[in-house]
């Protein structure tokens, strides 16, 4: 092989190595820019009023997002109430009774549902709930629950699979039926891992705004009932961002900051807690 040819191949290899790291850098620039800008512009908005007062009216100087924090918590709570039991039981089925044709199909549909755009899930909830009882918390919670189910199902399945078979065998050998073994021993053993899965799902829906918009719309007051809308942090960002009022834009960045802190906090926390376990 000629010397010059080898040199050319080496240079080409080095150039490609540079390109690969350049790609990584390009992917991380937006991430750092988003975190930096949200922190910088959001911190200005954070004060006592921000956490204690509801949405200000146009031109009003004081006001906060307290009602949106309340509304977001209620919506997340309701969505979890619907989706967590369904997700955990589905996960049990896939892990403990897996390897049948049905479980392969369910696993596949679970992935498909996970890929369905959240706006479509919002329209689905709009079609079956809003068109009959009107814009409401329950319609938004229903949409968010459907987004959560595939995530909880998958993480539960993975969590249960980590529980060692020897534990199952030990309990079965003592004479316990399989369902008791699953519910009282296997599920309990995987409790922490399932909880992290639920937290990740919560982090995901806390930032959802498209399905919330089409099921509740804009609401600037406090909670008044499950068949009425509530305010929502993520949706506030969308509505405040494009408003011409300076104080609303500031609130948009403030809302973005508390959402980011919560969502990134959960993600990083889960990563640290589960480090080395998987």
């Amino acid at each position, binding site marked *: 092989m000629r010397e010059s040819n080898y040199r050319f191949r080496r240079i080409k*290899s080095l150039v490609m190595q540079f390109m690969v790291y350049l790609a990584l850098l390009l992917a991380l620039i937006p991430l750092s820019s988003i975190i930096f800008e949200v922190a910088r512009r959001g911190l200005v908005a954070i004060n006592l009023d921000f956490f204690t007062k509801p949405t200000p009216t146009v031109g009003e100087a004081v006001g906060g997002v307290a009602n949106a924090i309340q509304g977001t918590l209620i919506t997340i709570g309701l969505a979890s109430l619907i989706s967590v039991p369904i997700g955990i039981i589905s996960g049990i089925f896939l892990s403990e009774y897996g390897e049948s044709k049905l479980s392969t199909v369910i696993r596949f549909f679970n992935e498909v549902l996970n*890929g369905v755009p959240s*706006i479509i899930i919002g329209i689905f909830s709009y079609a079956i709930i809003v068109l009959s009882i009107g814009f409401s918390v329950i319609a938004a919670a229903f949409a968010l629950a459907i987004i959560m189910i595939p995530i909880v199902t998958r993480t539960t399945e993975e969590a249960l699979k980590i529980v060692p078979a020897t534990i199952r065998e030990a309990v079965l050998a003592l004479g316990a039926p399989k369902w008791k073994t*699953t519910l009282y021993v296997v599920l309990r053993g995987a409790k922490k891992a399932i909880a992290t899965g639920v937290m990740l799902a919560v982090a995901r829906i806390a930032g959802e*705004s498209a399905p919330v918009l089409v099921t509740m719309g804009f609401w600037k007051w406090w909670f008044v009932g499950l068949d009425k809308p509530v305010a929502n942090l993520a949706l506030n960002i969308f509505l405040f961002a494009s408003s011409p009022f300076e104080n609303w834009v500031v609130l948009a960045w403030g809302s973005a900051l508390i959402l980011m802190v919560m969502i990134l906090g959960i993600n990083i926390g889960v990563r640290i807690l589960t480090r080395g376990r998987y």
Partner: protein
Amino acid sequence: MKLTGDNVFKFICAVIASSVILVLGLMIYELTIRSRLSIETFGTGFIVGTEWDPVKGIFGALPLILGTLTTSAIALLIGLPISLGVALAISEYMPQKLSHIFSFLVELLAAIPSVIYGLWGLYVLIPFLRDHVYPLLQSSLGFIPLFSGSIYGGGILTGGIVLAIMIIPIISSVSRDLFSLVPRSVREAVVALGATKWETVRIVMSYARSGILGAAMLGLGRAVGEAMAITMVIGNQFKLLPSSLFDAWYTMSAIIVNELLEAIYSLHVSALINIGLLLLLINLFIVILARLIVWRSLRMVRGIMRE
């Protein structure tokens, strides 16, 4: 089958787990029923129609479909090479300790809510592109019609860029999994023949070729359905064809975000749900195909490993 606790428990679990199939079925059914008015009024004319006028009650979705597919294609064009670079950097080039940190950082991109991408796009990315990048693009490539025309900041290219950032995590994590499955012995064999690092990496990539296609389609599926960020940066103007990549346009998801709350008469609502149905079908087609390709490819690469 005897009615024992075990059988009952298994049955209940199976029924609840199957609800995911029911939900998807019900979703398609409901959206079809609620679009019926629009389907009956316009038929296939809805898909090829080029006018959207809620005042006159005329609805055609072609420009929205084109807008959705174009921005998603731009996202893929920009996002795919970057994602592959990220996947290679993490699985082939970096020491393991570092790669864990960086793969987590890239995955954080997927955790950031869409609406925060929109906020950032509106206040940070758009001014940056408008003042520094687009004038440069125009002065160097302005002779191509795609890069001519006035610059607003928001628009098709900006939308494509934001979507590209949003699909990087999914494409790169799937490709990374594929690369890491290629057995060490393959790499060693290639290196033993005197290949450079890049030549080795190319062989590794060739094992994952069909899987990369699947990963790209998963990214496409996500880009097609993305709603908030794109609504905030694309400009929201209904027109058949924009004049350049800097021009404003509209997408299927954006029109739903903008109009569903204000729609008061049933034909308008029905037309918007019809858009949702079309979007769901496009998304399902892409995602199901992508999943099948990725699964097959994962099995194939694992099969090679066993041989």
